[in-house]
């Protein structure tokens, strides 16, 4: 199982997914960065382009979200007949 973990914070290295047993393989969302960048862009617009029209501020910034491989993913069971039914 792979999940998206928006509690992963790059700053402190804390991750909710790594508290589970087995530790969860998860995509680390760049949540803090997203908030920071979004606020920076908004502040720029507030400070510098009060006279500019909305059309000049049309930019979608996409931040990389990284897959952190931990313990919850593994190859398939090799001996399928051994699975209790």
């Amino acid at each position, binding site marked *: 199982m792979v*999940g998206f973990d*928006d509690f992963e914070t790059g700053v402190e290295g804390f991750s909710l997914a790594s508290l589970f*047993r087995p530790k969860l393989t998860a995509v680390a969302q760049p949540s803090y960065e*997203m908030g920071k960048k*979004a606020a920076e862009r908004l502040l720029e617009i*507030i400070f510098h382009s009060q006279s500019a029209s909305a059309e000049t501020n049309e930019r979608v910034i996409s*931040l990389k979200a990284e897959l952190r491989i931990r313990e919850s993913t593994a190859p398939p069971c090799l001996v*399928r007949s051994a699975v*209790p039914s």
Partner: protein
Amino acid sequence: MVRGVQETARSAGHSLILCNSNEDVEEERRHLRMLLSRRVDGVLLACTEPLTAMDRSIRERCPLGLVDRIPAQGFKGEAVVADNAGAAYDATRHLIGLGHELIAIITGRLVLSPGYERAEGYRKAMQEAHLPLRGEYFKHGSFRWEMGYRYALELLGEVTPLHGHPLRKLCYDRRLAEGARGFKSPMSRGGQCGGLRRF
């Protein structure tokens, strides 16, 4: 995310007013009306509904930036998002690389970018590996955790008894993943068999 916003705003001499609409579009509209009537300097919106994000009357009244989510189609404006498609592609490739073929996805609403793009990334990786895309392995609809739980139960019911194959599951969104984790797999008796082993 909120901390990122707050620390940046504070260092620029601004304060943050935080409103949580909890996936409720009426609540979201009420918050926006309140914020606009109080003449805030700007609004950052993680939208519940594409229509709210596309509403030009908000942008005309104050600077608006979107964060985390944008409408899946036709959005023009200022936004900071995560590369959901790339991440979903990497995650699916990881499972394929381990040898899995029956891979299901649980994702959110397809009208918003995280739900839509995660589905797209998954689809691309599956198609590149020439693996079948089955309708019953594609669960989407909401970002609420109860849905993750329900979908996961459905997937286990559909997949494990019928085919006896291991199932790897992609659960996109923390709440969906938490929901999916909230129960034990019927195949949790040991061995690396079910995708939900020991949860």
